[in-house]
């Protein structure tokens, strides 16, 4: 194997070499074990080397944006937490934050901290999913069971508070649906502690494994220029050294305080921009999110009892105007551009989802790689097909 211009050559063990070959069109998906969803990649391969790749999206398009226009704001939350089913809480958040800002509504402090806590737990849940599924795509079948054990621990407390395991529907305009259950904070603290304690088990299976490193180091490098051109965000952008995180850069909820100089929050970055860097960012972000969750717990314990929401009018109308609200979802920027004409439904609600842009970059990254690398790269883009197709 020699490396020329970043291309891996299959020279070892090829007796004849330079055989005449013909290109072959291969459809990866929409139903394929590597795409965990209905993403379709139309790739042209020469032997096992990818000549060109084109992501074809839309198999799961459900017209979320159009549906938003005929729903009132309470109902929109139901839809908004569905496109990215691994980041439901964070996606709800963008809608309610936007509406609250346009209404000029003040949210009770307890609700702000509880939302921050739940958003971070949601981030951990999301990342654990990918920390389990990514090794699976590389052929390691065990990490997913370890990851799901931790997910279960956290999902139990999320479920206790919200009643949901995936689509929490716990946000309301003005705060949360209801107060946190009695003794819940202790159970969350225990769960966070348990996950933190067992995380090394999972890490030991993934990081430092020679085969995994051989499969991911230097594979699928995304440059900061490409990231800027395609609007890539989240862990993928940070793995390439693009130091941006809305929690720090445009703080919402309680992140301003958490990401202050003395706070527990920090933005995880790497410089390599390869698959391994993306995986490492994800892994370290889990630690940071657990830190943030503990900080939120400490704060919630000191806050006096009080309301967690605001009494809303029977018919909620958002004043005329427009506003773009972006949040740092687990997978990247998730934005809602809300245009209201003063009615109970939005006139237009544009959804900017992270995965769409993150997947678009595949056409740029895949050519020149082998089919096996394609799986490594595809998995490391950490996408949810619902989030791509909306």
């Amino acid at each position, binding site marked *: 194997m020699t490396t020329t211009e970043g291309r891996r050559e*299959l020279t070892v063990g090829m007796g004849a070499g330079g055989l005449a070959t013909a290109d072959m069109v291969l459809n990866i998906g929409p139903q394929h074990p590597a795409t965990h969803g209905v993403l379709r990649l139309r790739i042209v391969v020469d032997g096992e080397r990818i000549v060109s790749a084109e992501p074809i999206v839309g198999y799961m398009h459900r017209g979320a944006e159009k549906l938003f226009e005929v729903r009132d704001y309470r109902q929109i939350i139901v839809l908004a937490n569905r496109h990215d089913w691994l980041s439901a809480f964070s996606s709800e958040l963008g809608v309610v934050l936007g509406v609250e800002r346009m209404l000029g509504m003040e949210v009770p402090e307890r609700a702000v901290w509880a939302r921050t806590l739940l958003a971070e737990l949601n981030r951990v849940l999301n990342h654990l999913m990918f920390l389990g599924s990514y090794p699976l795509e590389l052929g*390691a*079948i*065990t990490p997913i069971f*370890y990851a799901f054990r931790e997910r279960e621990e956290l999902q139990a407390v999320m479920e206790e508070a919200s009643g949901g395991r995936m689509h929490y529907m716990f946000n309301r305009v003005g705060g949360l649906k209801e107060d946190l259950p009695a003794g819940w904070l202790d159970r969350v603290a225990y769960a966070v502690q348990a996950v933190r304690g067992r995380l090394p088990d999972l890490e030991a*299976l993934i990081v430092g494994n020679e085969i995994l490193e051989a499969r991911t180091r230097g594979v699928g490098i995304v440059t900061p220029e490409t990231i800027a051109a395609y609007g890539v965000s989240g862990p993928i952008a940070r793995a390439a050294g693009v130091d941006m995180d809305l929690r720090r850069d445009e703080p919402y909820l309680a992140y301003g305080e958490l990401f202050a100089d003395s706070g527990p929050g920090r933005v995880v970055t790497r410089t390599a921009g390869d698959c391994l860097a993306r995986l490492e960012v994800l892994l370290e972000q889990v630690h940071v999110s657990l830190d943030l969750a503990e900080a939120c717990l400490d704060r919630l314990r000191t806050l006096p009892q009080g309301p967690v929401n605001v009494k809303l009018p029977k018919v909620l109308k958002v004043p005329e105007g427009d506003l773009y609200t972006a949040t740092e979802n687990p997978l990247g920027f998730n934005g809602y551009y809300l245009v209201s004409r003063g009615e109970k439904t939005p006139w237009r609600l544009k959804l900017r989802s992270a995965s769409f842009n993150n997947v678009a970059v595949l056409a740029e990254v895949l050519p020149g790689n*082998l*089919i*096996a690398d394609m*799986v490594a790269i595809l998995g490391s883009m950490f996408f949810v097909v619902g989030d791509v197709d909306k």
Partner: protein
Amino acid sequence: MNDAVEVTLRAVGVLAAFLVLPLLVGQTEHKVMAHMQGRLGPMYAGGFHGWAQLVADGVKFVQKEDITPAAADQRVFRFAPAVALVPYLVAMAAIPLSPDVVAADLPASAVFVLAVTAVGILGTLMAGWASANKYSLLGAMRAAAQLLSYELPMVLAVASICLAAGSLSLSGIVAAWSPWWLVLQLPGAIVFLVSAVAELQRPPFDMPVADSEIVFGAYTEYTGLRFAFFLLSEYAGIVVMSLLFAVLYLGGWHGLASDQLGWLWTLLKGFCIAVVVIWLRVAWPRLREDQLQRLAWLVLVPLALAQLALTGVWVVVAA
């Protein structure tokens, strides 16, 4: 007449072992893997800890429709599972469990077993080529490249053992075995184990069937019993390779009361190797095809050659 009875008995014995041992390994894989992953594995079929799970699987496979794709090369497609399966059956007949428990004690059984197991590749290649499926084709090409390059280090490693024993017969090798071999033949043993795992297309060398890349490689289009035959050949392969490893490197039936329980020792040693093969699958991700080739030609072949040279020197000096 007596000869006919004896041949029949031996054949039936081999067939029974061929049907039982792979299932035993398969069930062990189910349970060992499950417990390594914090699961229980099968618990219902047959009652006690799901012991009959694989029997139930077999029944299910028999009931399934046997589909041959319209575009497939029909006869080759149908014939491929047999080509993959039979070589391991033949190989099993030549592997001795003890000086008495062996179906066919051939004078050059080491060579015979290696030659026969290599035929199994052909089944995978036929399946992939005949399926008229791009994934199958890619899988078959990967399999062919992989199996060809791993044949060489494996043969070299076995050659070293044969040289040390001064015999090409597996029985003769075990008879000449000494505990020193555990140290002196260690590099060769490692080469053999790695090559065996690669030849079996087991993780971390399972690129020919890599489900997340090329769906199921050459076996993508197979259903029902024919698919089950491919699965059975994989597990039969584990049995053959594990027993071969036990016979070549671990002294086969050497052990306590080897006169009476020799066959049990061989089986136990082979079983331990099978568990190692299972363990590899639980612990490791999959290599890339070119990385595997690199490993074979740049690490294993030189290592096996060095082992051969070392053994040669040792044999000459000791003689």
